């Protein structure tokens, strides 16, 4: 077939121009891919959430605690399989820039509720035995070079003072979306210390995690739990883990929206760049297209030549962009791991990249195709010489 050969040869006829357009396309795809990955990372908690887990918190705000006494009542609610609880600790490791999530949790039930956190049995036993023990995710331990047995001190912000912990286990995620940057320790350690230092803060939990027997009973359990504590001193709000995470994300809706808009703007800009390249190309080759039409080639065949050339350029740029996205994402994981615990390029992002490249190529070719097809042969031939 002569047309595919002409498409390939035409695409690289002006090497500098084509090279620069491919580079621009590659950078656009890199930016688009990274922004999509940021969005995926933003929603990673939603993807990682379980349909069988509910979160109960104070209905006024997450910062207000709930009494520990709710535990038994929740545990005996119909449809409840397991209940755990915890507090956001908010500790700082050496400096504020070393941010990571740290929680005080009831360890045994917490680990049962989160089977996606895989902890070796020996380490799990060590952790459960040691009240000062803590467990860290693999990425977090690697970030600070921690090893089991290391003593780590966190500076309390909500709970003042220096808190010493002993690393007893390092968990890995069962799935790619599991957060491997968490730090959790015994709630009892926190509570007993509070009883001594700040008794008024003791026996209070920030949230309950409820494991239900079946996802279909989630709504009934949530209603029953909230009804149980209605008109009490601390009313509850129970929702699925997914809704709970989405509630956090909704606080940053504007940022998410800006990222989405910017990623679309990038595509529109590169569309204009490629369209400009194709318009220049078509203008230069008006005579050649006229010759092809003279020989009997149809408008469809001329259009295929132009669209094919645009697609070769955009898909080459797309492949370059995708190839650059992976190392860039690794760099982001290293430098922004504290903010995006789960940051990896999803296969769907690559599909979106390819879709964007196809769209850009086809849209950019529309006007040049029209120009080449509409022009009269006699006028096209006059452009030669």
């Amino acid at each position, binding site marked *: 077939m*002569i047309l595919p*050969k002409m498409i390939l040869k035409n695409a690289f006829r002006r090497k500098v121009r084509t090279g620069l357009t491919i580079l621009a396309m590659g950078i656009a795809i890199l930016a688009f891919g990274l922004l999509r990955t940021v969005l995926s990372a933003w929603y990673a908690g939603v993807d990682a959430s379980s349909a069988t887990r509910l979160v109960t918190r104070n209905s006024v705000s997450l910062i207000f605690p709930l009494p520990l006494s709710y535990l038994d009542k929740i545990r005996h609610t119909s449809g409840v399989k397991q209940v755990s609880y915890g507090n956001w600790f908010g500790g700082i490791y050496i400096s504020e820039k070393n941010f990571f999530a740290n929680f005080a949790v009831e360890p045994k039930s917490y680990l049962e509720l989160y089977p996606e956190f895989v902890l070796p049995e020996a380490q799990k036993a060590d952790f459960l035995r040691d009240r000062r023990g803590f467990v860290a995710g693999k990425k977090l331990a690697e970030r600070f070079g921690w090893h089991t047995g290391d003593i780590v001190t966190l500076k309390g912000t909500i709970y003042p003072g220096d808190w010493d912990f002993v690393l007893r286990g390092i968990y890995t995620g069962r799935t790619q979306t599991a957060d491997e940057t968490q730090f959790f320790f015994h709630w009892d350690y926190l509570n007993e210390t509070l009883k001594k230092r700040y008794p008024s803060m003791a026996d209070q939990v920030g949230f309950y995690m409820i494991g239900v027997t079946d996802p279909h009973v989630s709504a009934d359990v949530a209603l029953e739990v909230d009804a149980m504590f209605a008109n009490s001193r601390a009313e509850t709000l129970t929702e699925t883990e997914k809704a709970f995470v989405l509630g956090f994300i909704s606080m940053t809706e504007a940022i998410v929206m800006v990222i989405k808009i910017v990623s679309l703007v990038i595509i529109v800009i590169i569309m204009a760049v490629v369209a400009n390249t194709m318009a220049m190309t078509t203008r230069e080759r008006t005579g*050649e297209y006229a010759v092809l039409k*003279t*020989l009997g080639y149809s408008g469809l065949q001329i259009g295929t030549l132009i669209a094919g050339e645009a697609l070769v350029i955009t898909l080459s740029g797309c492949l370059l962009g995708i190839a650059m996205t992976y190392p860039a994402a690794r760099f982001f994981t290293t430098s922004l791991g504290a903010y995006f615990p789960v940051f990896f390029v999803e296969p769907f992002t690559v599909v979106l990249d390819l879709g964007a490249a196809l769209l850009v190529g086809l849209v950019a070719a529309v006007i040049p195709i029209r120009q080449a097809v509409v022009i009269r*042969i006699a006028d096209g031939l006059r452009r030669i*010489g």
Partner: protein
Amino acid sequence: MEKTSPIVEIRNVSKTYRRGSYLVPVLADITFDIAEGEFLAIMGPSGSGKSTLLNLIAGIDHADEGSIVVAGEDITSLSETELARWRSGNVGFIFQFYNLIPVLTAFENVDLPLHLTGLTKQERREHVETALSMVNLLERLDHYPGQLSGGEQQRVAIARAIVTDPTILVADEPTGDLDRKSAQDVLNLMDRLNTELGKTIIMVTHDPHAAERAHVMRHLEKGVFDS
């Protein structure tokens, strides 16, 4: 060779171009025949309408009025798609600036019109090699236009024009961009195509030496033939 039956019949053809708000008449009520196997030269000053007439005969432009019948087909009644198909089988084009595709070799340029036919790859190869051997360029078939001289490029263009064995050959200033020697070679080749293969050739030229090689010469002046 008998050259009496008309292969091209032009009847009352007129053409006017619009230049902004002005209408510029180019051809006015042209009527004439071209016999089969004829080598016709159309001469005339710039703007006389000779290239326009050639374009109309070749089916790459439309007449405003009148009819043009080529080998029994009234091409003025054909749609753009039908005209494209008709051109691919009936007309061979030779341009002043050769108009070869620079990214294709001589072989591929000559092969270009054959892709619109139902020929197999092997048949196409045979046709192309035959055409290139007729213009004495078989040994240059892998060369790109940029690696050929002007005369060689025009010979490749002639090979491309004859490879489909068209009904008529139209040539618009075929020697206009060539030196004297190359021009002579091209004219000799066209002469051979006419005398040995009986091809009907319609050539537009400014060059009196080129026109002398034709068997019939007609002068066009302001859109009408001199009597």
